[in-house]
């Protein structure tokens, strides 16, 4: 086998310029794919991180039917105390859960005593909320980065529009599920930067203040946002949690809970999917580049060496060995392209990170591009290139191995 490699490498070096051009083409393809994967992957992960860690959580649990009417924030579809207890028992028993945060979500009027506008509010337990959506801290533009009783955290655009700032007194008016209206005065405790995605322009108050405004007789909640220890296990855990909660039925024999991951709650999941699809097509392009370039160079190699093939066949080289010789040439070209491509690609990724490139995402500006490539990505790309190189060599190699020595020797 070592001798087959030796002959293959020498044959490749025999046409240095052509070999370099082909290897360069593969290298460029590999570099392009690696840089694209790292940059798009970085953007995708940042986008998902921003959506899940600053507002949505990794997944949410609601009363069945709530998500279908989520735009209305229906107070009639809140979870009751016994259901909350059951849900908390289940979540507390799961080692995969890092944190969860019960929320009361409602819409109301926001007044600075001069003018009034609409606001969507989340009533939360601050400690639980900050543990579940840790990027919420970083969204505080001003204020103490806390959600105290009697204080309201106002979204940036609303604060600007209503001309309110830290320490100002405002009034929130809301209608409860029975239709009665109630109001409560709050001090502006913080201004929040807007986040992209559902709930990204909501305000925050303490959950007890929310219950007071909504005049709740018992501690109901609208949803529970859940954060997992391992984001990669999201779909597995989602299935598990759905299984555990599906046993809970209401008096009509229908499920009490519904469980959704961020993917079904945020439209940005489609963007993430689009990035995946684009990555897939970029990989397809790489395969096409490798396939065509290797096949082209191997067809030329076979054509140029017909007499040599005739000679080695005449002196008794078996067809299988002739096939191996050409397949190994393609294999070596693939390896060269993959290795050089990996080295150049990783170098470019390192340089991109050293340049500290920033970009904007929605209202969030100056987000740092952290291009990342995993060893498994490098391995996958390399193996794909090598396998495609071998496949591309097969047809010319097969043709070489099937040549009649007498005809090959006559070739001029």
């Amino acid at each position: 086998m070592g001798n087959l490699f030796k002959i293959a490498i020498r044959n490749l070096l025999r046409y240095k310029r052509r070999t370099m051009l082909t290897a360069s083409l593969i290298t460029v393809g590999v570099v392009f794919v690696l840089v694209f994967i790292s940059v798009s992957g970085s953007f995708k992960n940042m986008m998902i991180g921003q959506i899940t860690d600053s507002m949505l959580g990794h997944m949410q649990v609601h009363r069945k039917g709530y998500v279908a009417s989520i735009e209305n924030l229906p107070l009639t579809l809140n979870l009751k105390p016994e259901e909350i207890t059951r849900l908390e028992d289940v979540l507390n028993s799961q080692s995969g859960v890092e944190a969860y945060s019960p929320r009361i979500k409602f819409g109301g009027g926001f007044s600075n005593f001069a003018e009034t506008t609409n606001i969507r509010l989340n009533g939360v337990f601050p400690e639980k909320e900050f543990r579940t959506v840790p990027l919420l801290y970083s969204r505080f533009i001003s204020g103490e980065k806390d959600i105290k009783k009697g204080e309201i955290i106002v979204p940036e655009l609303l604060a600007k529009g209503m001309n309110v700032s830290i320490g100002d007194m405002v009034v929130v008016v809301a209608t409860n599920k029975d239709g009665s209206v109630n109001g409560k005065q709050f001090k502006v405790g913080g201004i929040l930067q807007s986040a992209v995605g559902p709930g990204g322009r909501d305000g925050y108050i303490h959950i007890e203040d929310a219950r007071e405004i909504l005049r709740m007789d018992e501690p109901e909640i609208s949803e529970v946002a859940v954060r997992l220890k391992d984001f990669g296990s999201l779909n597995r855990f989602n299935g598990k949690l759905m299984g555990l909660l599906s046993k809970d039925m209401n008096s009509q024999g229908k499920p009490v809970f519904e469980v959704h991951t961020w993917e079904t709650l945020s439209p940005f999941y489609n963007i993430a999917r689009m990035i995946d699809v684009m990555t897939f097509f970029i990989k397809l392009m790489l395969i096409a580049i490798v396939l065509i370039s290797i096949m082209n160079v191997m067809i030329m190699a076979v054509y140029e060496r017909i007499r040599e093939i005739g000679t080695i066949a005449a002196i008794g080289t078996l067809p299988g060995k002739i096939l191996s010789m050409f397949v190994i040439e393609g294999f070596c070209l693939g390896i060269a392209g993959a290795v050089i491509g990996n080295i150049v690609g990783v170098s470019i990724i390192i340089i991109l990170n050293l340049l500290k490139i920033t970009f904007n995402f929605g209202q969030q500006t100056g987000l740092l591009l952290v291009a990342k490539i995993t060893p498994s990505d490098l391995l996958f790309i390399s193996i794909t290139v090598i396998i495609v190189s071998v496949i591309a060599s097969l047809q010319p190699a097969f043709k070489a191995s099937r040549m009649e020595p007498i005809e090959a020797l006559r070739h001029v």
Partner: protein
Amino acid sequence: MSLIVAENIQKYYQVGEIRVTALKGVSFEIEPSSFVSFVGPSGSGKTTLLNLIGCLDKPTDGKLTVADTDVLHLDRKQSASFRGSNIGFIFQDFNLIPVLTVYENIEYPLLMVQSVPASERNKRVNTLLDAVGMTDQKDKYPDQISGGQKQRVAVARALVTNPKLVLADEPTANLDHKTAYMVIDLMKKMRDEFNTTFLFSTHDQKIVGEAEIIFTLEDGELKGKDVTGGKGNG
């Protein structure tokens, strides 16, 4: 017992709608360790006959036995194995592998065809390098040596597997007269040293005389057999 037995060998080629007759019922026998030449003008069927004996082609009709093997019924893979074990080839254009050195070219059949162990390979290649006087050129590539040297390497490559038979199709056609004689002398010397049967085709009358047995072909027919003893006339 004869090394080669050919009985009424016929070979036709179909070129478009025309059937070309290359050999018309050729019969002969060749004994082991012979030094045989096939002579005749271009198109007389010399190369066709050598190709048939070398299992590179199959006769249309007739019977052909080489080294006790009925070569007509060998399939593609069996033919390759048979050639690798029993036949050495010397080509008019030398046909050395350009990416291999002189040493590696001679070693090639042992390595890629017969899978001979390294120590044995080394011994056989060095013996032949010495025999053909190419030891000091062993690390050179084919494009770094002369035509005569290339053909000496080709002779060594043909002999390295200890074949029963070496076939040489116009081995001196691309060489000057002096070098051609040197190559023929070398082939004879190798025959004497290794007891290998040499069959070569040529139309060079001076070289022909070096053969011990001369078969004359004309228009695909065997016209005569001369046993000269290889005294030569050049």
